[in-house]
């Protein structure tokens, strides 16, 4: 770039070194405390930023799933269900500490495999992973206070299938409460992002977690289906698309398996004209461009009060022009790579449909690297509630802007979706926040902030965004059943 055009936005690359990683050339399945070969055909996991192969990953077939579930069952019967809650907690505390110790390595692996900016994996994903284990560790010997009455019991073997957008964080959301409650686990990371889970398996070995308590099997959708439908599984926990969630709800019907589903979303981020607009713009950016918009609770529908729309959109565009898209491992990067070609194709397709349906497209002017999967931050204005880009989850850095005049209209538009995962409210008026929050049919509502997560805070959806909660005391209920005399029951002689 010529010197005359340099600005404060220019910067020297500051890539995080991958030398901290000590990766194997290939990984087996983590079953019964050790890595074992799989029956299925192995596959490569690649960096979406370079399309270069990182390492070779095993694929578990139905027989491998059998072995993993059997290992989890044995561990449940012989070890984990007979261990004191205090000791279970100590293992979880150990894991939390080990995650903190290997935080840098985990962050680099996550950004390499997923494509998310290192500043996010370093400052959000991995610290939350440690926090999640630390939080649930303390619950393990306090389950009488979980809200299910005295002596609640573990469900047994939990089958867990997690997505590629927050690979290690979703693993922590699933494993930490399951183990605290006394269950054993077979977990399948997403096909495109298995790396951090395999490093996590090494952490489990360092923690000396008894064999079989956590089993990590890699593979694609078929592996997940075999796991979820395994007859010796007591609990199914899934985070991912609503389409797959439906299939799981259907296939587990009548089996007696306990099921929790954390599915898609199309969150409204509502900006009133009395909002602090500078903060709101930051919140809108964080809401939809955090993690390239690969966030189920992303604020993908901006509902802005009509009289401030022009100003908000202008400020938003100005802000987006300053975002740096590129190498996920570069500490200056704001927008990383799209996780896979398949996802990139979907984002492109829905964006094209947005244009075809009459919305106005604006794309942030940024240079796209020649290799890898990338999509520049994009805003659609003039979006109507019937447009596909206002209804379908795009799961990418694409914001649809709609307007409203009154709070009632904002609420009605916000709720006009089969989803109900999250929502945002921006206004300086506290009483308005409370009144609007009351009316929104969504499980998580952020007032004057967005995309905040905490292990103490329950997360999960209404309607077709799924059921069950993860995080907080409520998150334990997904992995426990009432004791024989549990719950609050009216004692009647009938």
């Amino acid at each position, binding site marked *: 770039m010529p010197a005359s055009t340099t600005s404060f936005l220019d910067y020297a690359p500051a890539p995080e070194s991958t030398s901290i990683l000590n990766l194997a050339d290939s990984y087996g399945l983590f079953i019964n405390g050790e890595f074992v070969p799989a029956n299925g055909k192995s596959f490569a996991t690649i960096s979406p930023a370079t399309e270069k192969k990182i390492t070779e990953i095993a694929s578990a077939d139905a027989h491998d799933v059998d072995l993993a579930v059997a290992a989890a069952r044995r561990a449940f019967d012989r070890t984990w269900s007979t261990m004191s809650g205090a000791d279970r907690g100590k293992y979880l505390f150990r894991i939390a500490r080990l995650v903190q110790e290997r935080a840098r390595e985990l962050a680099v692996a996550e950004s390499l495999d997923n494509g998310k900016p290192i500043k996010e994996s370093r400052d959000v994903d991995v610290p939350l992973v440690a926090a999640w284990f630390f939080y649930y560790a303390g619950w393990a010997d306090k389950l009488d206070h979980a809200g299910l009455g005295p002596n609640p019991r573990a469900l047994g073997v939990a089958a867990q299938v997690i997505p590629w957008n927050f690979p290690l964080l979703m693993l922590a959301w699933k494993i930490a409460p399951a183990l605290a409650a006394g269950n054993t686990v077979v977990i399948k990371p997403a096909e495109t992002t298995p790396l951090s889970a395999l490093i996590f398996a090494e952490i489990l070995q360092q923690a000396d977690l008894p064999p079989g308590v956590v089993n990590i099997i890699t593979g694609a959708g078929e592996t997940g289906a075999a796991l979820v439908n395994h007859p010796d599984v007591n609990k199914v926990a899934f985070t991912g698309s609503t389409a797959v969630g439906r299939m799981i*709800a*259907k296939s587990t019907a009548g089996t007696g398996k306990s099921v929790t589903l954390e599915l898609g979303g199309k969150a409204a981020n509502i900006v009133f004209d009395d909002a602090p607009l500078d903060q709101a713009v930051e919140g809108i950016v964080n809401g939809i461009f955090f993690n390239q918009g690969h966030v189920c609770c992303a604020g993908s529908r901006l509902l802005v009060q009509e009289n401030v729309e022009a100003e908000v959109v202008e400020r938003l565009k100005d802000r987006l022009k300053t975002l740096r898209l590129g190498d996920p491992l570069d500490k200056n990067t704001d927008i990383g790579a799209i996780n896979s070609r398949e996802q990139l194709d979907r984002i492109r397709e829905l964006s094209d449909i947005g244009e075809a349906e009459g919305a106005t497209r604006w794309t942030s002017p940024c240079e796209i690297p020649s290799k890898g999967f990338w999509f520049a931050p994009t805003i659609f204005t003039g979006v109507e509630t019937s447009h596909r880009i206002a209804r379908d989850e795009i799961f990418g850095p694409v914001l649809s802007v709609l307007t409203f005049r009154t709070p009632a209209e904002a609420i009605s538009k916000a709720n006009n979706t*089969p989803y109900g995962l999250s929502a945002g409210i921006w206004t300086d008026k506290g009483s308005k926040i409370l009144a609007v929050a009351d009316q929104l049919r969504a499980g998580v509502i952020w007032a004057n902030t967005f995309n*905040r997560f*905490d292990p103490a805070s*329950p997360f999960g959806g209404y*309607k077709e965004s799924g059921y069950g909660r993860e995080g907080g005391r409520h998150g334990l209920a997904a992995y426990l059943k009432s004791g024989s005399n549990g719950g609050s029951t009216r004692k009647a002689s009938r």
Partner: protein
Amino acid sequence: MSHLPVPKTYKLYIGGAFPRSESGRVYEVATAKGDFLANAAKASRKDARDAVVAARAAFGGWSGTTAYNRGQVLYRIAELLEGRSAQFVEELRLTDGITAAAALKQVETAIDTWVWYAGWADKYVQVTGNGNAVSGPYFNISTPEPTGVVAIIAPATQGLLGLVSVIAPVLVSGNTAVVVASETSPLSAITLSEVLATSDVPAGVVNVLTGSAAEIAPWLAGHADVNAVDLAGAEDLDWVDLQATAADTLKRVLPPEPGVPDATLGRITFFTETKTVWHTKALI
């Protein structure tokens, strides 16, 4: 002078009114001994849909009432049930073939169950919600809210107690309901509807369908505007298929239980959603 009895026409209860089935169909309700008792309305798919529309329309108002008010409205129903006790006893004696003493016992248990649930209206939020100590400048609180429209397959036995045991817990939090009454013991359901109609429960909050549960249940399980299904009394139906149908719209589904469900806090909370709100604190 002798009095020739005036028999009651048993109709559906939808949106606060007592319509016949739009299909014009009825079915015979017999005593336990097999004698003719009444022609009850045989609800159709269209009736089920009308009931869902009524329940949806009533949801905003009912869920928006204060918890104290909802508790009083529910308690009021127990008062009215008490006044109708003799009628329920007589109907249960006939349809269920039980002694007057057993019928009275059932009515009394139903009333006590209703009072127990009514008392939860302004407490279940405190017991099942909580503040969350998050790491950051946020006031963060989780509270349960009603799920929405709940379709209920009432237990096949114990016509009154079965109904009360599934309706009351759904109403406590502010849900609205479409209930398919016991096919063989529907008289209590109609009489309970009359109690509801003359109580302070707003029209549409409870809608009662009589007829064939096997025929109506699939339409309710598949209806996109129903948020949850209580299959309490569906044991003899193809309930696995109903649950699979409900999965298309990711409804919350409570599987069948034998007999009449116990009164538990869990039956209230199953039909609620936890909402967590993060309120930003200013940095001062």
